[in-house]
Every structure is written in C-alpha cells, then in structure tokens.
C-alpha cells in the first residue's frame, strides 16, 4: 500500500517485529534441525547453547533407522496419505457434483447427512469406530487408518459449492450435444473446479500425514505404524538420545514443509475453505 506515507522509523520497527516473530515461529524447527545434526561427541546440553553444530553429521539419520524402521513408517504414512487424497478427490467430486447438479428425490436428506457428519467430532466416535474395525477384522491395517476419513463430509460440501458456483450455460450446451451425465461431469464440470480439487487434495494429504489419535488407536503392530505414532514410539522407547528423536521429527516434517513451500497458494486458499472444519 502506501509505503512512502510511513516514516522510516515505523518501517524499521515493523521489520524488527517481523524478525522477532520469525525467530519464534521457525526458530524451534531450526533448533531441532541443529540438534539432529550434532554428533555423538558433541554435548547437546552445552551451556551456553550451541546453535551451529561444530561438526555437522548426518549419522543420526542413519542411526534412527537402526533403532526404529523409520523409512517403513514414512512409507506407511505415504501410502495412507496418497490413498486418502485419491479417495477424497474422487469421492468428494462425485458426490459434490451430484448434489450440485442433479435433481433427485432425497437430495436434501443426503446433504443433511453430510452436514450432520460434519458436526460429529471424530474424537467422540473413535471408540465405536475401533469396535467396527475390529469386527470387520480390519484393526491393525492401514486400510482401517484410511477408511474413516476416506471421503470427508467437509470435502463433499466444498466440492458441492464449487460445482454450484459454475455457470450453467456450457453444461446446457453440451446437453444439446447429447452428452450424458458422466461426460458432463468429466469433460466440463471437473476441469473448471481444479483449484478446489487441489485444495481438497492438499488438505487431505496434510490431515492424513499429521493424524495421530486414530492411528494410535487402531494400529498396534510397529510394522504398520505411520510416522506420527512411530515418532511417539521412538520417544517412548528410546528417549535417551535427543539427537535421534530430532532426526526422526525432521524426517517427518521435511516433506510437508517442502510441499508447503511449493504449493503455498493452495495452502492459503484452503484455510478459508477448511475453516469450517475447526
């Protein structure tokens, strides 16, 4: 806006404040990174604290893999997250389109079901879900981790709104050309809501990659652990070495930070949309 109208002192103050907040918000990550790079010979409790490792080493990353199958955890997390993204994009787009563009008896009822589902906190049904998974013989499987959030009601409603916001004209034209519902959906509607789909994909990925409580309940075999509960396991079992835990957390958080830096605008756009979720 109008920078010239501001006195230089104000600008300096603004930057100083920005730098202070910067230190608070990414300082902890950098400290964790620094800890993860410190060798066994270096005292991590040294006083005053040493911010830059004196002899940086990547050995902790190899060591953490000796202690727990951290790459296996990462693979599990990836499988779960990818499945979650795919299911959410496909399921939410299909349902959203039907709700926005088709007229049929019971539509209101269906919308209501989705809204109701939105209101139920996941934490209050987790025990019951665990029972279901158990009786379906799915407990301790990655499928059980994916299923409850496979098509979230929020995403369905998001997609519904996105489709509802599209103009009718083009679709009506294609109707004359004899396009059926599926063709209208894939050729005309879908390409127009790419942005919303990206938001759905990214937030599904993030929620799934970061999810903790549900996998903690439904998985009990370390071979099946996702990264988040794997890290908790690492902390509980081998807490003696902070360097290893630091390396583990960096492995878990790095992919998301990189993804965020690459796809920032979708992350920001998703905040407005996802705000309903709470």
């Amino acid at each position, binding site marked *: 806006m109008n920078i010239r109208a501001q006195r230089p002192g104000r600008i300096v103050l603004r930057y100083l404040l920005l730098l202070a907040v910067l230190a608070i918000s990414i300082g902890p990550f950098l400290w964790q990174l620094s800890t993860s790079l410190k060798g066994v010979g270096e005292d991590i*409790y040294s006083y005053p604290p040493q911010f830059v490792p004196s002899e940086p080493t990547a050995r902790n990353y190899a060591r953490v893999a000796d202690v727990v199958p951290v790459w296996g955890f990462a693979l599990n997390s990836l499988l779960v997250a990818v499945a979650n993204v795919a299911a959410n994009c496909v399921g939410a787009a299909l349902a959203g389109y*039907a709700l926005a563009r088709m007229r049929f008896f019971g539509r209101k009822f269906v*919308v209501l079901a989705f809204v109701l*589902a939105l209101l139920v906190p996941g934490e209050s049904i987790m025990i019951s879900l665990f029972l279901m998974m158990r009786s379906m013989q799915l407990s301790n499987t990655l499928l059980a981790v994916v299923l*409850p959030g496979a098509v979230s009601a929020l995403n369905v409603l998001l997609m519904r709104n996105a489709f509802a*916001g599209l103009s009718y004209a083009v679709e009506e034209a294609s109707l004359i050309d004899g396009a059926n519902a599926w063709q209208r959906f894939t050729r005309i509607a879908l390409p127009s809501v790419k942005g919303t789909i990206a938001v759905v994909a990214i937030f599904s990925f993030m929620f799934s990659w970061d999810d903790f*409580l549900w996998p903690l309940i439904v998985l009990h075999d370390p071979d099946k652990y996702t990264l988040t509960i794997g*890290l908790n396991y690492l902390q509980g079992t081998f*807490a003696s070495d902070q360097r290893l835990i630091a390396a583990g957390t960096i492995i878990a958080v790095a992919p998301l930070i990189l993804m965020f830096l690459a796809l*920032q605008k979708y992350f920001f756009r998703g905040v407005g949309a996802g705000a309903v979720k709470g």
Partner: protein
Amino acid sequence: MVTDDNAADRLPGRREPNSHCVRSSQDAPVPSSAATDLRAAGRGARRSGRGIRRHWRATPWLFLLPGLAITLLFSLYPFVNTIILAFTDAQVLGGGNFTGGANFSRMLHDPQFWTALRNSALYVVGVVPFLVLLPLLLAMLVQRHIPGIAFFRAAFYTPVVASVVVVGLIWTWLLDSRGLVNSVLKALHVVSEPVPFLTDETLLLISAMLVTIWKGLGYYMIVYLAALANVPRDLHEAAEVDGAGPVRRFFSVTVPAIRPTMVLVGALSAVAAFRVFSEIYILSGSSGGPAGADISLVMLIRQVGTGLNGELGYSSALSVVLFVLTLGLMLLTMRLNKNEEVA
C-alpha cells in the same frame, strides 16, 4: 523459494469474509450464497423444459455412493452406536447389558472425569483469547506489501503444516529441564533453577496451551488476512485525518469491521481446544502429567475405552458428553455471532 506475494488477495471468501462458514452448519445444509445460486439455476433449468433431470434415475446415487457410504458407515453409524453403547456396560472383550443412566451417574462420582473436564475447559479459556487476538495482530503486521512479506507470511504459517506430534516433540525438547528455553533463561539470570515446564502440573498444562497457540497462529493469521483486506481503506484514512492514533484506529475501525471473523476464530479455536489430546499427550510423555492431573477429556475417553479391560460403555458415555459439550460451545458462539448481526 517463496513465490506468491499476493496469497491473501486470492483467498476465497474474500468478498464475504468467512462468516458463512459458521452459519452453514447452523440453519442450512448449504452456505447461503451457493444455495441461492442453486435455486435460481434450478428454476432456470425447469423453465427451459430440459433441466438437470436429464439422467438415469440411479445416476445421482451412483455418484453419491462412495461418499455417502463412507459417511454413513464411518461417521453416522458409529455415532449412533456410541449413543447406544453409552447406556450399556459393554466391555472390550464383548458382553454388555443395558444399564440405563448408570454410566452417567458414575461420571458424577469419578474424580478423573472432573479433572479431565476441568482441564479441557481450562484449555478453552486459556487458548481462545490468545488465538483470537494474537493472529489478528500478526495479520496486521504482515498485511502491507512491503518487500519480503511473502517470505514472512510463509514462515509464520510453517508450524501449521507440521503435525502436532512433531511440534509436541520439538517443544518437549525445548522445554526440557536442560533444554534450550531453560538454558536461555539461566543465561539471562531470569531463573537459577530450571523451570519445571514439563513436570509441574500447572506449568505442563500452560506449556501445552503455548504449543497449541504457537501452532495455531499462522492458520488464523491467514483467516484474518482475508478479512482485513475487506476493511475499507477510507475508513482508516478518515480516522487518521481525525487524528486517531494506531491504537484507537484498531479499536474504532478494525475491530468493528472484522468482528464476525473474530467470532468465527473464537468458535473454531474453542471447539478445537476443547478436544485437545495430542499436545498434552506428547508433552507429558503419554502419562497425562503428574498424578494424571493434566489429563483431558479425549485422553480419558481413550484411556478408559482401550486395552484388554477397556470399558466401552463408560467410554462411550464420556464420548457423548464430549459431543454435547462441543455442540454447546458451537451453538454458544453462533448465538454470539447472531446477536452481532442483529446489532
């Protein structure tokens, strides 16, 4: 590395800053603007005689099948099941009879329940004011397009993308009795003995709140940025001409203009805070603090309902309480919002 200078300008709902989000869950299945579009479109279609009914009768249901099946099966059915189980003495290893309200009367005499309820409520009280106010100030700080601002916005958002577990572990290490925070405090001669952030009952809860606030700042900052962009600039300028300082302009111009967003942020953060689990779980090393004094309601639900001796009935009853109170919190904040609109 940071490319998008105008992220906030491209936010959705910029013109209609977010207020629809809360309303949508209240009175209508659909955010109002979209619903109007749809109705208008529906009329148009009918009038033209063709309409969107040009499909096979089962088509919509085929489209809905995956989403609806998942929602009914893994949200609504477990929800109903939870309510039913809440009135039984079902165990993890099967069995269970209807016991009426026994689980609920048991709650009244269960000290753990009251501790958990108190902590979850305290969490709301401790977290919400900060998450309503701090991100707003932060948003105002990054609002102007000065050089490098995109970098700062991205950096401030980073804690949001990290999982709670990662964030919890990072802070566990920072707040350790020999961790960075204590080292720095010692170096500055603020304290002589390490502060027991993670071992003292009260400090542990406060530390967990700090982590929640730290992680939530960036998210709500973006929500506020979208709202701030809608505050008419001439209002500010007029106030400035009248000689109002920045503090007075904040209270007389900014706050009234974005009040609905503040209520929204309050509602969202309150509901999330009431359901706290991971922060306390991780910071306390899964124990719930000394003597379990920092256990939250969700932690209690998990603790009671799992394991070989898990009590599904009681755990479900606790879940029902969680649901009712969460819903109550939502309704309460929406009531606030409504009053605001009337006024």
